Each structure stands twice: as structure tokens, then as C-alpha cells.
């Protein structure tokens, strides 16, 4: 155990810091969900990142990455959040689908999708949930029917109704879970990649509780997709999705730096406005939890780099960061007092006042998406602790 950065790791940090200082936009970009303009401004930022070689540092160089290890990814993320760089528009792609493509994709699929993903040319949405399949994801009903096409090759005809797809309002592509007609539960599922502008796809925005269109419903009416867009073997979609979910819960969806930066801001807010000792205790808890999460992720990264695998213990991560995020923002609103409900703060208020409210609304979803925390508790009890199903 050696909890010191090597000189090479420190040099890498300095390199990231320098690049961020020169390239991060001085003013925040308009948010990527509310308008096409904000979405495209973020796409432009993804392109800037890619040109600098920072699109996805852990990916192999041939796919637009730098082939770096997970400790360097953590260092990159720390510097990214430290610099206040824009949110990652293509998070569904680079952090969730990307690692799954690297694990399950054919060479052709990797070459086709990963570089475009890293470059920001293809922004991805996830199409898993359905009106009748949320926590019980194996209950999806949308179908992929295999048919011959005019050229003699195979296509799928996709049909069904997907919902709660983040970023789908403006995104280019989606990765969806579909079943062979007549199959049931975990069998007969396939993960299929499809463009959101394909004929037969209708995207209907859904507003978050503050009115922002952060996700969408997808209606698929006989959408024809080449069979080459299936990721992993036919019928093996459940295993492929669980691999994605492992990354999602385990490591990449929420990097620790995000919470450490938020906790440091919370401490500043406490210095300005704190007088209630109970809130002081909450601030300390938020700071300590962000620290504990960072340490835990460093431990996981070290284990994975030495050949270890992600296991059911990642379910503890998802519960921990989502509750940390919600608690942190609730504490911030309590410190803001009567000002907390004001969507732009009082006249002359600094921008962070409104950011806390937006962050709070976002954090409400944390215990729900990526597998509700109740499902994670079942996974911990059954697969980590060995309790009966």
C-alpha cells in the first residue's frame, strides 16, 4: 500500500491542469438539456476535449483514448472538476456504453462507434426502461424481430415503447434492450444500438419536476436496424447490460471528484452562513463522506488495475454516492434558508445560490436511476451477504 502519487502521476496531473486552465470556457455553458443551443455548445466542448486528447483517457489510443490506467483517470477527473469544466454531455456513451463496447464489441463495432463517441460526433442515450419495466428490468416488452433484408443480410425490426431516456431529446444514438418475440424474462434479450433519427423513431420529451426536458419517451414503430448493430450475442443482452450496470454503479458514472468539489463548496457556504451546529455536523458528514467515497474508489481502481473484477460490492457505491449527493444538497438548501426556494436567488446573489437548487433537484433522482437503491440493497443482501432470495 503506497498512498503517494508517483512523479509520473504528478506530472500527468500538472499536464491536465495546464490544459484545463487554457481551455475550460470562462463562463458556464447554457445547460445541455433545455435547448439545442446548449446541447451543441456542450458537443463543441466534447470536440475540444477530443482534440486535446482528453475525450476518454482510459481508452486504447486507436479509439481516441490515451490508454491510461484508472488512477490516471481519477487524477484527470479531479483536475476536470477542479477546473469547473462543463458537464460531460456524452456520459451515457463514454462511461457506460464505451466500456461495454470495449468488452463485448466486435473489432468492426469498436472502430465504428468508439472514435465517434470519443470525438463527440455521436452523443448517446440509454433506452432500457419501459413504462412496465423499471426496477424489474427483465420485464421489458419491446421487441427485436430478426428478418432478412434485400441484400440477403439480417436486420432487426424494433418495436415498443422506451421511457426515461436521459439526453434522448437531442442525442444522436441510443443503446436499447429488446427481446425476441415470445421470449420471457432474462432470456431472449439483446442489446441493440440504433440512431434516434431512424425512420419509425419518435422522441417525446419529458419534463423533470422543475420543467426541464432532461429525458424522453421513445416510440419505436417497426424501426429497421442492421443486425450488425447488436452488441454481444443474440439472447445474451441481460449479461451485456449487467456489465454496463457494473461500470455504472461501480466506478465511472459518478467520479469522486464531483462530490469532493461540491463538499468543498458546501464548507464555504457554511463559513458564510452557518450558525446552527446541527447543520455544521451535516456539513462535516458530507465532507467526510466525499472523502470516504474517493478513498473507496481509489481502492477499487487499484484492485482492478491488479487484475481484480467488479463485483456486487459496487451496489454499496451506488447507494453511498446517491445518498451523499442528496444529503449534501439538502444541507446546502438548509444553510440558504428562506433563499433556498428562489430559482435565481435574491437580487445580486452569487450564481451558486441557484446552482444549489438545481443540484438538489438533480440529486433527487440519484437514489432512483441506475437501479433503485432498494434493488441495490437486495443485491447487497443476496449476493454480498448471501441472504436467501
Amino acid at each position, binding site marked *: 500500500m503506497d498512498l503517494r502519487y508517483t512523479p509520473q502521476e504528478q506530472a500527468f496531473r500538472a499536464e491536465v491542469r495546464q490544459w484545463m486552465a487554457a481551455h475550460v470556457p470562462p463562463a458556464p455553458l447554457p445547460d445541455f438539456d433545455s435547448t439545442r443551443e446548449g446541447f451543441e455548445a456542450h458537443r463543441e466542448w466534447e470536440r475540444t476535449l477530443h482534440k486535446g486528447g482528453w475525450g476518454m483517457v482510459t481508452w486504447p489510443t486507436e479509439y481516441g483514448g490515451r490508454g491510461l490506467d484508472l488512477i490516471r483517470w481519477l487524477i484527470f*477527473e479531479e483536475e476536470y472538476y477542479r477546473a469547473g469544466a462543463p458537464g460531460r454531455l456524452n456520459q451515457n456513451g463514454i462511461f457506460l456504453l464505451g466500456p461495454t463496447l470495449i468488452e463485448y464489441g466486435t473489432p468492426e463495432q469498436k472502430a465504428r462507434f468508439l472514435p465517434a463517441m470519443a470525438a463527440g460526433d455521436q452523443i448517446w442515450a440509454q433506452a432500457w426502461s419501459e413504462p412496465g419495466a423499471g426496477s424489474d428490468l427483465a420485464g421489458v416488452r419491446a421487441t427485436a424481430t430478426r428478418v432478412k433484408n434485400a441484400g440477403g443480410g439480417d436486420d432487426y425490426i424494433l418495436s415498443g415503447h422506451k421511457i426515461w431516456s436521459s439526453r434522448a431529446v437531442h442525442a444522436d444514438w441510443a443503446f436499447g434492450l429488446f427481446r425476441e418475440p415470445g421470449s420471457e424474462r432474462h432470456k431472449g434479450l439483446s442489446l441493440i444500438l440504433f440512431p434516434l433519427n431512424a425512420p419509425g423513431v419518435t422522441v417525446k420529451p419529458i419534463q423533470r419536476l422543475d420543467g426541464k426536458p432532461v429525458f424522453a419517451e421513445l416510440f419505436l414503430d417497426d424501426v429497421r436496424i442492421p443486425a450488425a448493430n447488436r452488441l454481444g450475442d443474440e439472447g445474451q443482452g441481460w449479461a451485456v447490460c449487467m456489465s454496463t450496470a457494473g461500470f455504472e454503479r461501480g466506478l465511472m458514472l459518478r467520479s469522486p471528484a464531483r462530490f*469532493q468539489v461540491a463538499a468543498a463548496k458546501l464548507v464555504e457556504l457554511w463559513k458564510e452562513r452557518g450558525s446552527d451546529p446541527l447543520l455544521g455536523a451535516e456539513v462535516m458528514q458530507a465532507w467526510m463522506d466525499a472523502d470516504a*467515497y474517493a*478513498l473507496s474508489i481509489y481502492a477499487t481502481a*487499484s484492485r482492478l488495475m491488479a487484475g481484480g473484477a467488479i463485483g456486487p460490492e459496487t451496489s454499496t457505491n451506488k447507494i453511498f454516492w446517491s445518498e451523499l449527493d442528496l444529503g449534501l444538497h439538502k444541507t446546502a438548501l438548509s444553510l440558504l434558508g428562506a433563499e433556498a426556494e428562489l430559482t435565481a436567488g435574491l437580487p445580486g446573489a452569487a450564481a451558486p445560490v441557484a446552482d444549489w437548487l438545481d443540484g438538489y433537484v438533480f440529486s433527487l433522482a440519484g437514489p432512483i436511476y441506475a437501479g433503485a437503491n432498494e434493488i441495490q440493497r437486495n443485491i447487497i443482501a443476496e449476493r454480498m*451477504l448471501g*441472504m*436467501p432470495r
Partner: protein
Amino acid sequence: MDFRLTDEQEMLASEVAKLLAATCTGADLRRLLESGEAIDRGRWGQILVMGLPGVMGPEEAGGAGLGAVEMALIATACGYAALPEPLVEHAGVAVPMLAAAGADLEKALFGSRIAVGHPVNPLVADADSAAALLLAVGDDVHLVQRAQVTLTRHDSIDPFRRLFAIDWSPTPGTRIGGAALWAQALDHGALFAAAQLLGLAQRAVDMSVVYTKDRVQFGKPIGSFQAVKHHLANAQVKIEFARPVILAAAASPGSVRVSHAKLAATAAADAATHAAVQVHGAMGFSWEGDLQFLLKRSLALGQAWGTPAFHRARVAGHILSAPLGADRTFDAPASEEGRREAA
């Protein structure tokens, strides 16, 4: 950067755990309790054979020359077993104090126990079976022979916590150090109490898992009910996020992270023992069940070596004064400001 235990560290932890699993069962604890003795001689003999008192002793004095990470692993195993003997305070606090003071270590490494009367703790644990005691006069540390003090026992709800008030008078020549030695002792005491709390928290969850697989109600093992599962899952989450804090604190002793470790482990042990009592039902608060040993130790250790309020004050001192940020996870800031605040 590599946040993994070495193979040697893993092996040490597993050897100690094996020894205690074989010699420190619930039946062993009850037998010791009925005997009225402070020490199980057979078990303590095996602890000596493994050289555990000298884990942190310098090699030139006959110790193993290992560090706080190894000691934290041993303390975790001791907590898991609810070990009655005062190995952790002796090996993890007293021996490093003697080593830092340049005192003779020979007896302490090979059998004689030293009790520690740190000013942060109102009473001295296991003073009756100790050969000598480290006691405070103001900031000074005195090494005092057992025969020079008079003890008054105060019963703890934990029958294996033998707590004493000490009546004694300093004599010339017993002073071995000052405030820096007490500060080091506090860091070690709090860190290894945290490690014990982590171990006993995991034991409480593990015992509960076994119980809820066996106990049948409504025709099913109660462990199949989500309400029961979620109690234990919540406790396990706290355990998972206390463990790396304890290891990181052990890797940089003297940092404010020791206080974070103590707070996180106390919260994990509190959550785990109370979840365990709940899922054990009436068995959870009966004398007959072994869970009582964990619950009582958790109550005691959570407040020993600095209460949660004491450690929160140290954390507050740090976050209000030190630069914070995502790039500072491994800065290992000293906890001096916090110490002054708390004092």
C-alpha cells in the same frame, strides 16, 4: 499510488483471524467470564507465540518493526472476535509509546502488559493485569509500576472492559515524555479503536446473516424478507465506506483522517449492532445470545479514545482552516490545529 494490501498484510490478517476464530468463540468468552480471570492464559500464550505484542516494536528491540496498517488489520480481527485481552492498547498504543520514549521494551514485547491512562479517557482499562502503567501528570507521561498505584474498579456493562480509577503520586525518575507522546498515543488509540469497531460491525452483520437464514417465520427464513435484508445491507454500506478510511488513516498516522476513521467506524458499528439486535428479535437483547458482547464493546469503544464530539471538533478544525479540494485526497494534513481546538 497503490491502495491495496500486500500479500504479507493479507496473510497476517488471516492468521490472526484464524487464531481468534479457534480460541475466542462465544463459549470461550463465557468460560472466561465465569472464571473471573482477566486473561485466558492459553489464548494469550498463543498471541505471544505469534509475536503480536511486538508488531509495532522496532526490530532492533526484538519487535516485528511493522506499521499502523498491520496493527489496524490485527485490531480489526480482535474486534471481530470481541477479544477480551487488552492486546490492542498494549501493542498498538503502549509499545509505540515506549519505543518513541526510548524505554526498555523487552518485557513489553514478550509478555508484560502495559496499561495506558490517556487524559482523553476518564478511566484506565485493564490496569489490574498490567505490569506497569503509562500515566499523565499535566502533559507529562510517567511509566509507573503496578505496585506503585492503588486501583478502584468501575464496572462497565462490557464485562471484559476492566476499568479503573488510579490513585498514585509521581516520583522522580518516572517521567518518560511529554505532550507529543500523548498526541501519538491518541492517534494510535483512536485509530485502533476504529479498527476494532470495524471488525465488530462486520461480525454483527455476519452473525445476523447466519441467524436470519435459520430463523423461520411465516414459513420462510426471515432473511428472505426485504425489510430484514435492508437493515443489514444498510449496515454493510457503512462498513464498506469506513474500511478504506481506516486503512488510509493507518497509512498516514497523525493525519486528521484518524478522526474521520473513528467517526465512520463508530457509525458503522452503531448501525450494525443495532440492526443486528433488531433482526435477532428477542434473542438480540438476551444474555444467552453472543451479540451482547459486540453491542457492549461497540458502546464502549465508540466513546473511548475521543468521543464523536471530540473527533468532530478535529474534523471541523481541519475543514475550516485547510485548503480543500478533489486534488487533496492524499495530502495527509496534520491534525495539530484540531488538537489545539479540542484542547
